[in-house]
């Protein structure tokens, strides 16, 4: 079933978030989780099948437009949050000279 497969994408993102040693890879893992959530919601709205939610003629069955409208919010917010995280990442690189988690933590304890 399709929603199960989309949940696998979320799990892949969680795995990357838990194991990545690089800040940029962590940001990308968050993006992967977000993509999985978007796919999951779009699947939930359209799991019965049906046409696009635009009324031009007589459509028997249309996809639920509510999850689609909510996912626009998710996409916009996700992109801006990713941009904010990457900008913080640039600042961290300027300050520490590296974007490795362990190195940054080690230097933070040393001070």
């Amino acid at each position, binding site marked *: *079933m399709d*929603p*199960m497969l989309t*949940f*696998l994408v979320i*799990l892949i993102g*969680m*795995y990357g978030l*838990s*194991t990545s040693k690089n800040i940029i890879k962590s940001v990308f893992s968050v993006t992967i989780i977000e993509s999985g959530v978007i796919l999951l919601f779009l699947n*939930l709205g359209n*799991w*019965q099948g*049906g046409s*696009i*939610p*635009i*009324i*031009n003629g007589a*459509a028997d*069955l*249309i*996809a*639920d*437009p*509510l999850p*689609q*409208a*909510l996912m*626009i*919010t998710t*996409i*916009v*917010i996700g992109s*801006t*949050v990713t*941009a*904010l995280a*990457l*900008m*913080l990442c*640039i*600042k961290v690189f300027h300050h520490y000279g590296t974007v490795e988690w362990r190195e940054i933590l080690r230097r933070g304890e040393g001070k």
Partner: protein
Amino acid sequence: MIKHVILIAMLLAIYAVFTVSLQDLEQIYQTSADYFREFGVDQTGSNNLVTAILLDYRLFDSLFEAGILLIAVSGIIWISKHDIEEKNARFMLDKFKTPDLFVTFSRLVYPLMLAFGFYIIINGHVSPGGGFQGGAIVATAILILYYIDADKETNIGMIVTVEKFLYLTILIIASLSIFTRGTFFTNVFPYETSSTSTQVIYLVTLNILIGFKVALGLWAIFTAFLKEGR
């Protein structure tokens, strides 16, 4: 190694729980789009039901979405502020390293992309699209300008100021319905007296404003990154 095994086992456990909880999806997700299909066009004047939800039923959500975009842009610009005041950002790419073919095709594609973005914004209520999507396309078209003209200078503060004023305008237009309908954040024109074609005016206005706001926001984000990477 053992940590990875434990992690994968935990993730698989989460997956199993999810699979079990979605066994009877038909009982969980019963609300098909019947309500929107029957009343959506009549109540909002929008053929595109997603736009109907974004700009009428759940306008409150969309307003805060635009607000979060504004806050994130402000945050990015505040973080990327340097000690030395730099008002202008110039493109970091060396003009001679950008391939000529790319520049030529950018010149060819740029007006088409701009026109397509405006088409998406204006036709948001009849075809797939709307303010947010069209704004992203317009922003991409503007960003191509940086490839065409490497010496282009941009004032980020100006962009963000215009974006703030656009957001205030959107808030005011969205609140105007308190005078005509008695509730906040819905269509300005009263439901009983106005026809569908009248309600479309409000949808197109709000779509255009949101589209320009999103385009300016994404443009400001990109310019901040260029300034940082220089």
